[in-house]
């Protein structure tokens, strides 16, 4: 099966590989997939609390070339978006951009799941923080 040039480019020169401190309040982490299924994606966003913009994104992926390319592309797209805009990223856009073949569509689904999981994690941290700050009570995280 020949791969598109874009998949190969992301696979050979993956963007934004790495990790942020998952404990940081401004970082949202999404970990999706399972080793026994052959794909695990960890995707992280770093949000600027003042602007609400995603300033940076990083990923690490265990999976096939298409899974690596999907998560690499996702990190590129996340940068500079608001959290709400990021929620709008659809797996079909990833499929289109990378010209993923039908058997690889699940890689794009996983990337979308990873984005949503990272945002959810970030929002949960903010929600846990705010009322606690208002009430001045310690919060178990």
């Amino acid at each position, binding site marked *: *099966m020949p*791969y598109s040039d874009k998949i*190969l480019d992301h*696979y050979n020169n*993956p963007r934004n*590989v790495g*990790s942020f401190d998952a404990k940081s309040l401004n970082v949202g982490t999404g*970990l*999706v*997939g*399972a*080793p*026994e*299924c*052959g*794909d*695990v*994606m*960890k995707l992280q966003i770093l949000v600027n609390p003042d602007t609400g913009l995603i300033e940076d994104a990083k990923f*690490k*992926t*265990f*999976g*096939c*070339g298409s*899974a*690596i390319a999907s998560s690499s592309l996702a990190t590129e797209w996340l940068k500079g978006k608001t959290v709400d805009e990021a929620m709008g990223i659809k797996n079909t856009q990833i499929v289109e951009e990378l010209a993923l073949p039908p*058997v690889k569509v*699940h890689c794009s*689904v*996983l990337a979308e*799941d990873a984005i949503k999981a990272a945002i959810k994690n970030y929002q949960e941290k903010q929600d846990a923080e705010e009322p606690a700050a208002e009430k001045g009570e310690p919060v178990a995280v």
Partner: protein
Amino acid sequence: MVKTPIYMDNNSTTRVDPRVVEAMLPYFTEKFGNAASRSHPFGWEAETAVEESRDLIANLIGSSGKEIIFTSGATESNNLAIKGVAAMYKKKGNHIISQATEHKAVLDTCKRLERDGFQVTYLPVDKYGQVHAEQIREAMTDKTILVSIMAANNEIGTLQPIGDIGKLCKSKGVLFHTDAVQAVGKIPLDVEAMGIDLLSLTAHKIYGPKGIGALYVRKRDPRVRLEPQIDGGGHERGMRSGTLPVPSIVGLATACDIARREMDLEYEKTFKLRERLRKGIMDRLPESYLNGHPTERLPGNANISFAYVEGEGLMMGIKDVAVSSGSACTSASLEPSYVLRALGVGDELAHSSIRFGLGRFNTEEEVDYVIGHVVHEVNRLREMSPLYEMVQQGIDIKKIEWAAH
């Protein structure tokens, strides 16, 4: 500089040996007769070539030429052997014994027979992929008519103790079929000494052409009878009708003849290359694991799992090296290799496996190139792997509750 791409997938298929091509060529042009034409020299010439071919093939497995039935390949040989025996001996019994890591050509044939009322026992294998004669003895009933166990596995290269199994079957009066596609021409096989009644082989795994195979069918002690699966002109003792493809048959026979004459040298050569590759990779990469038996295996096969790296992803990184993976990322099911699962290799490591199949035309330079390339890519992908990162941080990834997708 090595020439790329490098072919290291010889368990899948092999390049046709130039000597085989040369032997075949006249049978397309000057010697084009139909081997069944008894009335003119064109037919006689073809018939002579076919009969000489039978003998050359028989020599490789210790049988007589008369016991060789030509087929389109091992899939057909396996179908003919198993379905043919089942139909012919169904009054005697309806039980067949096979094992979990057989090729699909055997497993799916057995499954079809199950739908037709036969009972099939699929024996489990040990962690090296071997089944033992004792398991077969225990599984036998008075309804057992056939045991079908492969000689060597296509994915992991594990050799089965077919001599022991043949002896047992003989003593119990049960027919023994072996799918010997991977073993023929690579290791010594003798249908008499090993008590084999039916043996499937194919040309394209031994540097012959695709589309031609054979089934050895024992003629005495006992005389094995088969219900034909293809009806027609009554060729091949009525067991397999169809005009014989003489050029292909000559190709198969030449491939068998070369394999027999050069077996010792070739074994030594491929074994050395395999060990160079295996050690070269595994000594440099911690947490890499050899799948299959450490010693009882095909000389050219190395199936290695690289923890924290997905097999298909790795293949993309070494795309100028043709290998295959037990990862099934390309299949709709997302299930990894059923062979590796049968060994008890975890799904995660099954997804991380690469099969290297060394053969006649591989060189030391190629092996060294592949070692460097694989080591570099595995290290690169591990740096990109969240699983590797977690393990570095001391997290037990087996204890994480992963959401299956």
